[in-house]
């Protein structure tokens, strides 16, 4: 601390608590609870012009945001992100927060009303900025489109470490017939979700990338309640999201996403159309009985109806019948109830179309009201 102390420069500003919290609540999220490099536990404060910049990183992604502030002395420093956030959170509504660091000091003084906190600091110029590379592919995506790309796929992202290349959303430009689309795909090896939106201008030559789960979660939080567009810049190893008041830069997952189109069936000839809500509710009820972690339910399709059932050696049996528009041979097929429910939560229309080949082959699920989405479920043997 002593070695660093004499290199710190002065900084002095006043910021409204509400403004600070708006950005700090997002930024501090990025900081990992455990760090081997002490400065990574800190948030960088950068007072310039009439704004306070806040930056945090976990070396995988960096989030920078800024808020209006009254800057008396421009400068920068870093303090513990979680401590700073907790203090700001506990201060009363409407507080004004004064931050000051004296030249050569290893401490930041935070004052609000009658409260005074003195926090140890590390110099701002030692904060590891994430290297920017040539992010020459840039395009703008409507916020609604970005939400759609994320919401309709993220539930299928794998958490399994061994197949790390599935730990994110595969984002790439694709062709759907004559239309060019921006497509997002996620899979955990048991289910797959694919969604597309119109290809934004300038995205035609974007590299196909795998955006890590944590980055997906952070950008999704940032665009909640926002309208308009997000600018995206992308290279083979980085992706950058630029919002009005924040920039998120992230590494991409280094790996090859599997050829997912191969597992999306095209010739499944046993199709059933079900009312979405009664189907999801029936699966949810029946799965109460399913065993342990597997949560298997069995679907039996017959002309005009479907039966959802579950059997457990310990918890008993359950069966529920629902209406179904189905004309094929009777078919029995098992699924993980969790997978059905995750998927049904993203079906916006009133109906769902289930296209099957047999009880052991990939099953295609479509939202008849949304041609841009496709879900694939692998059955369970039950």
């Amino acid at each position, binding site marked *: 601390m002593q070695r660093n102390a004499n290199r710190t420069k002065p900084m002095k500003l006043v910021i409204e608590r509400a403004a600070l919290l708006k950005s700090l609540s997002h930024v501090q999220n990025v900081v990992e609870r455990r760090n081997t490099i002490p400065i990574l536990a800190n948030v960088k404060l950068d007072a310039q012009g009439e704004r306070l910049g806040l930056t945090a990183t976990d070396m995988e992604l960096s989030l920078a945001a800024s808020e209006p502030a009254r800057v008396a002395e421009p400068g920068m420093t870093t303090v513990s992100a979680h401590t700073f956030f907790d203090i700001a959170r506990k201060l009363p509504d409407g507080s004004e927060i004064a931050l000051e660091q004296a030249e050569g000091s290893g401490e930041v003084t935070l004052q609000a009303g009658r409260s005074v906190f003195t926090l140890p600091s590390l110099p701002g110029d030692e904060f590891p900025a994430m290297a920017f590379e040539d992010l020459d592919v840039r395009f703008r995506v409507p916020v609604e489109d970005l939400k759609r790309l994320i919401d309709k796929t993220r539930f299928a992202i794998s958490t399994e470490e061994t197949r790390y290349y599935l730990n994110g959303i595969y984002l790439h430009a694709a062709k759907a017939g004559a239309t060019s689309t921006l497509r997002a795909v996620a899979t955990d090896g048991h289910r797959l979700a694919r969604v597309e939106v119109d290809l934004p201008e300038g995205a035609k030559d974007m590299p196909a990338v795998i955006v890590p789960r944590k980055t997906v979660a952070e950008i999704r939080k940032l665009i909640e309640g926002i309208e308009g567009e997000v600018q995206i810049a992308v290279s083979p190893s980085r992706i950058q999201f630029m919002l009005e008041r924040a920039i998120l830069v992230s590494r991409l997952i280094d790996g090859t996403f599997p050829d997912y189109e*191969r597992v999306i069936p095209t010739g499944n000839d046993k199709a059933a159309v079900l009312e979405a809500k009664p189907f999801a509710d029936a699966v949810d009820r029946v799965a109460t009985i399913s065993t342990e972690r597997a949560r298997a339910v069995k679907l039996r399709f017959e002309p005009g109806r479907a039966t959802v059932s579950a059997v457990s*050696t310990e918890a008993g049996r359950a069966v529920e019948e629902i209406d179904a528009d189905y004309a094929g041979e009777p078919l029995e097929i098992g699924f993980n109830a969790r997978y059905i429910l995750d998927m049904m939560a993203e079906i916006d229309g009133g109906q769902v179309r289930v296209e099957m080949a047999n009880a052991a082959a990939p099953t295609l699920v479509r939202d008849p009201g949304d041609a841009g989405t496709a879900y694939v479920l692998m059955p369970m043997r039950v």
Partner: protein
Amino acid sequence: MRKIVHLDMDAFYAAVEARDDPALRGIPMAVAASARHGVVMTASYPARAYGVRSAMPTARALELCPRLVLVPPRHDAYRAASLAIRAVMRRFTPLVEPLSLDEAYLDVTGLGPSATGLARRLKAEIRAETGLAASAGVSFNKFLAKQASDLDKPNGLAVIRPNEALAFLAALPVERFHGVGPASARRLHAAGIARGADLQTRPEHELQALLGSAGRHLWRMAKAEDDRPVVPDRPRKSLSVETTFEDDLEGPDAVAAALPPLAADLEARIVRAGFAGNTLTLKLRYAPYRLRTRQAPLAAAPILDGARRLLARSPLEGPVRLLGLGISKSETLTIEEQLALPLG
């Protein structure tokens, strides 16, 4: 220091097919769902000699080896073999972490003086009970055990000892480390890092700056610091108690006299855990390390009666050093299986 075994069945699907159909033995063959499109799931060793590999399109495989015999997969047979293999592994330790149907980690710390000897017996018992060959790697962490199982395939057994680990890792190309894909490899090479030795000499923060948290993981692997535990993949399926005797028990009467306290202990634990099993196991360890188990369905009668019947079922093979009693749920009850998307 832990002792970890990584067990990897050799060309598993192909081996099951060759076991069940003598006509397929010793010839280039591969298991593939479809001959026209689709990919090779597993290739036999004779097929590998032609360059045929898993995940290769079948069309390409047939180009490399025109007389390649393609066999459609029989998943039920593979599952049955896999269950049998897991049952053998769980006779050695409950700490079995299956990675797939044909691969698992076992934590065998404290199970006798030689993990290598144990791995050899494990391989032999799998061979005897399933007719299938496995390769095993033995070391003190998961990453090294997995590397070791690759060293001596097929039907191999290789050990990486603590005093050899750093030298082994130093020679290992970075591409062989878990999580290093083509782009990370390029980046590492650009930074002058080609082998484990280069990773070992760089400071941790340099690798972290280069690759993020994957860099930290890599640095630890290269230093043989892999403390990931072996995590059994299933909820409690068994409960057991055992006692080791200072003086070996000689004869069935001495063994029978030692049963009541064990049975009482097991019953108390069953009540505490609220666990209901359907199979009773009697475990007998003869000097020095010969382990035998006897199993029977658990009747409504007291556990002690069941244990006595198991003991009386056949003669002892010698003085008994350790006596154990356990109950379990038999595996055949859980027949649900989530199928995997054929992503390759």
